């Protein structure tokens, strides 16, 4: 494939990326967060339509418009997001879309030997009681992933795409999958292998293509290439504009202390956020950063651990309401669904959280006071609006995000949790959001900032916790918070044992 370009709205996911697979090889696909690996794979598998792409197979040009097209050319994919139907059985899922039929009637007997053979091949990675007629919903996530892989293999592809297919697997399951992949390769199948575990790529692949910001930057033989060399290829030579010596606030007393927090996608996380500090959450995407913020905010249930704040001593947070009461605010990443009432007016959106403070006799809303509060906030945040009564959906992405931040600031929070607040926001609005964050910390708030953009973390965070599979695996402090350190720590931490990164090892935050 070459010249693959894909835009999502204004965001360029792929910008002329290319990839070439040879028969019988396992080809690694590497790159930092948001470099376009998954999008490139989806274009090849037909689930995403590229703006522009040239794909050739055996020297002949191909057009792939749908997964069915891809299947016709012998391309099968294992997706990061599983393509299984939970209510169907294992066998029904394995044959889904390619069921043998005569006159429209299913002929389970025809596919049964194939299903049995495939299950035998993967049996060691599945539980003892898993049979062809087990509903997929009854399987744990790892075994569902195995079924997903088995499904792709059963289609007898010439090109197999494995996109983070090993992320939820145990070691034994991974080695079984590797055996299957090696057997397929020996039979001439090409495999494109995406994993954030560099050691797996080193172990399985012969060559690797490295993507960075939607472009292919290198394609290299893996024999004779070290992990460090790969990482530096991924980081590239372009350096982040060094944080323009913004005066970083002095660390004050701790505002928020989290100890031993476990829950959904979280495993024994401890941290301390101080007065006037921006604490960044880094690492690869989806390693529990959002869940950590949501759990602190009470939107997800904590299984274990404690959260204490300097303001609400001993208060239990069971619900976002509790969190708001003791001065915690959350700006969610998915603003469209969690952060706002898109069709309601800007004024209502800004005032909804802090409503209780302005109620007259506890019931009626004073329109005058609501207007005044909203107007002063619009002013402070320099949000460009038409009228206060316009719906929020009429604003640009950046300004929408500022409205969401504004609605929490009216509540004067001591702790602000920001979950990837600048995703899909233009550069100018980003700068203003950064300025806002600085203003918050100057006023003594503690800010916890999750970002999928390592450049952004390097620019704004005073300290960064690097997360991996739900735990804090490293910490970068002060001058160690650089783009290079962030990317390499995120990638290297994935490689088995805790690589200590950065200079300062003052405990686990």
């Amino acid at each position, binding site marked *: 494939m070459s010249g693959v370009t894909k835009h999502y709205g204004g965001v360029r996911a792929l910008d002329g990326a290319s990839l070439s697979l040879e028969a019988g090889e396992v080809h690694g696909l590497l790159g930092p967060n948001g470099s376009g690996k998954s999008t490139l794979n989806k274009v090849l598998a037909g689930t995403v339509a590229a703006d522009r792409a040239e794909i050739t197979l055996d020297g002949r040009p191909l057009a792939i418009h749908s997964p*069915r097209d891809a299947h016709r050319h012998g391309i099968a994919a294992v997706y990061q997001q599983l393509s299984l*139907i939970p209510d169907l059985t294992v066998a029904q899922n394995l044959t889904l879309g390619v069921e043998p039929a005569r006159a429209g009637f299913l002929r389970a007997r025809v596919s049964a030997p194939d299903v049995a053979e495939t299950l035998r091949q993967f049996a060691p990675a599945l539980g003892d009681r898993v049979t062809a007629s087990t509903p997929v919903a009854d399987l744990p996530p790892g075994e569902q992933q195995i079924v997903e892989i088995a499904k792709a293999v059963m289609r007898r592809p010439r090109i197999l795409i494995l996109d983070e297919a090993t992320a939820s697997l145990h070691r034994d399951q991974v080695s079984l999958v590797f055996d299957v992949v090696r057997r397929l390769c020996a039979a001439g199948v090409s495999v494109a292998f995406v994993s954030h575990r560099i050691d797996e790529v080193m172990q399985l692949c012969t060559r690797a293509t490295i993507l960075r910001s939607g472009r292919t930057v290198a394609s290299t033989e893996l024999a004779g290439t070290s992990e460090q060399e790969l990482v530096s290829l991924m980081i590239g030579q372009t350096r982040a504009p060094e944080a323009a010596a913004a005066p970083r606030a002095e660390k004050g007393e701790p505002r928020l202390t989290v100890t031993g927090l476990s829950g959904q996608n979280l495993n024994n996380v401890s941290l301390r956020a101080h007065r006037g500090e921006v604490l960044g959450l880094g690492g690869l995407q989806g390693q529990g950063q959002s869940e950590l913020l949501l759990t602190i905010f009470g939107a997800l249930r904590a299984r274990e651990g404690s959260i204490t704040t300097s303001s609400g001593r001993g208060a239990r947070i069971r619900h976002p309401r509790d969190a708001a009461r003791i001065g915690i605010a959350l700006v969610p990443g998915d603003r469209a669904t969690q952060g706002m009432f898109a069709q309601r007016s800007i004024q209502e959106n800004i005032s909804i959280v802090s409503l209780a403070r302005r109620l007259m006799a506890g019931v009626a809303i004073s329109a005058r006071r609501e207007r005044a509060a909203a107007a002063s906030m619009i002013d402070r945040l320099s949000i460009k609006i038409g009228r206060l009564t316009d719906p929020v959906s009429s604003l640009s992405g950046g300004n929408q995000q500022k409205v969401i931040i504004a609605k929490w600031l009216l509540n004067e929070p001591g702790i602000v949790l920001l979950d990837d607040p600048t995703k899909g926001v233009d550069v100018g609005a980003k700068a203003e959001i950064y300025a806002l964050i600085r203003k918050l910390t100057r006023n003594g708030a503690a800010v916890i900032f999750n970002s999928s953009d390592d450049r952004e973390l390097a620019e704004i965070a005073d300290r960064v916790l690097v997360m991996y599979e739900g735990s804090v695996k490293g910490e970068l402090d002060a001058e160690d918070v650089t783009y290079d350190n962030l990317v390499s720590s995120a990638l290297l931490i994935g490689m088995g044992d805790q690589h200590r990164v950065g200079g300062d090892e003052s405990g686990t935050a």
Partner: protein
Amino acid sequence: MSGMLDRIRDVRVGALATWALLVIAVVLNAILQPTFFSLYSITSNFATFVPLVLVAIAQAIVVVGGGLDLSLGAIVALSSVVAVTVMGGEDGRVGLGFAVAIAVGAVCGLVNGLVVAVVRLQPLIVTFATASIFSGSALVVMPKPGGTVPPVMTGIYRTAVAGVPVSVLAVLVAVCLWLVLRQTRLMRHVYAVGGDPGAAYASLVPVTRTRTLTYVIAGAFSGLAAMALLANSGSGDPFVGADIALNSIAAVVVGGVALRGGRGGAVGAVVGAIVLAMAANIVFFFDVPTTYRQLVNGLVIIGALALSVLSSARRAAR
């Protein structure tokens, strides 16, 4: 907010609750109507059940595929008036009548399916709109009730074959049709699309075609329901079936089909339809005005949902 809605849509009446309700309905009915198990009473009861049973199967297929069809009642009305007009009361044209009714239903379903699956509009809104179109067309074909159904149809409908009433046979045949349909690749794909359209698409299921076909099949079943309705009433009526669409949704819910799609089956919907129809009987025997039927339907649905929530909560607690 949408999460809450999803959770409500996910609640599903358990199979046990559905059958329990059927037993309750039968017992109550038998107590109130001593002749309940007589051949005559079974025949006449089932004669009134058949149309709803057929439309409930139709609705179940659409709902399992992740859709919803509010226009099935209007399709029944349109198919029935067209069929009555075509047959013109002649015994020799009954076969033609069946063919026409099924064809009209299927074409209406095709319209629904194409708009929902190809144009990708909300099924609720689409079928709400097409329902008006279909009822309007029915009025054009037959402005006021009239026409005669071939006597052979009304006659056979109330007889029995080898001791089994034809109306009961009709329900059995309908269930068999569903059981045959279940063996097709299409229905497998319908379950997949209703379960997770994105995953189904990635798994090579032709999602658009599958969705469209659910509405076509539902339309065809509604055409059959129209013929049953004609056989029962003896004449055409463009206003018939106004409440049959909503009742079919109720039947599907009581029958344990998740409104979110992908789970449940038409057998449950058939039982649900019979439960609802018998509830109406029971209301009648309690000397409550028939205008309370909607209210009773609502209570039956809530009862069924409550039963299954209780039983699933107990299962979760274990």
